[in-house]
């Protein structure tokens, strides 16, 4: 997979997370995974179809999802949540929406044309994701709330 597909997602994730969490974000080392890999606990998945096809996963632990949700809610003057309820799911979904929206603008400007699916949220323990015939590039983003992995598996059609 070409790195130029993942960069817009990484840049968008960095700028959106910095803005909405209002904290320092550290970008970790990029790594490649061609076998199936475990999902951390809460993952928002967005599908891409067009000149490029595949999926992007925003993956984090349940604990990080809770902290990120509450950081986003309280920074906007809304009430924090005590359990990862529908509001928590809507918040992480919206976070994925904001990041992909920005990334797609960058990719469109690079000349790629494709459509996106609305984000779907997956939660649970002991899950794995497998991508047949396409390897996944992962960029971890570290902040005070934990690690958020940007996991991109796309290929040219």
């Amino acid at each position, binding site marked *: 997979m070409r790195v130029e597909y993942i960069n817009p997602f990484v840049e968008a994730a960095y700028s*959106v997370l910095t*803005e*909405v969490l209002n904290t320092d974000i550290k970008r970790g080392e990029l790594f490649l995974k061609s076998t199936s890999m475990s999902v951390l606990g809460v993952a928002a998945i967005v599908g891409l179809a067009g000149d490029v096809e595949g999926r992007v996963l925003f993956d984090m632990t349940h604990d990080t999802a809770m902290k990120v949700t509450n950081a*986003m809610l309280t920074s*906007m*003057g*809304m009430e924090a949540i005590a359990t990862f309820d*529908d*509001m928590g799911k*809507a*918040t992480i*979904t*919206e976070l994925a*929406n*904001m990041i992909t*929206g*920005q990334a*797609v*603008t960058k990719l*469109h400007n690079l000349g790629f044309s494709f459509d996106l699916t*609305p984000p779907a949220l997956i939660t649970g323990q002991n899950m794995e994701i497998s991508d047949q015939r396409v390897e996944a590039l992962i960029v971890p983003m570290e902040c005070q709330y934990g690690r958020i992995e940007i996991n991109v598996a796309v290929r040219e059609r």
Partner: protein
Amino acid sequence: MRTKGDFPNINERKAEGVREDGAPYRVLVVDDSMFVTKQIQQILTSEGFEVVGVAVDGAEGVEKYKELHPNVDLVTMDITMPKMDGVSALEKIIEFDKNAVVIMISALGKQDLVKQSLMIGAKNYIVKPLDRKKVLERIVSSLNR
């Protein structure tokens, strides 16, 4: 003795969501994301606006607008929604009431749809992520036009 009421309070700023006569502007929020709906509600109610209705898709938005009319001053309309998208809902609302004040809420990367909405009659647009200042600025300027 003069009471406190006799002195004008120079620190008192008029809330953006309240008309000259003291009545709040009434808002219908149309968005499929619970997060965005809550966020808009929070921003607006803190400035004195009254959220009189919430709809989770375009079809429900049109229905609620017709129900509330003429007791609604402003609509915030998400663009990407299930059942009926925000652009089609805007079209239906303008068809019903050509003076409707509708503000589009858009994710980045939907410039074409935003342009189309403005042509149809949306008064303004706001790009997500939403921040308080941006939301209030756009909404207040649309109401004063």
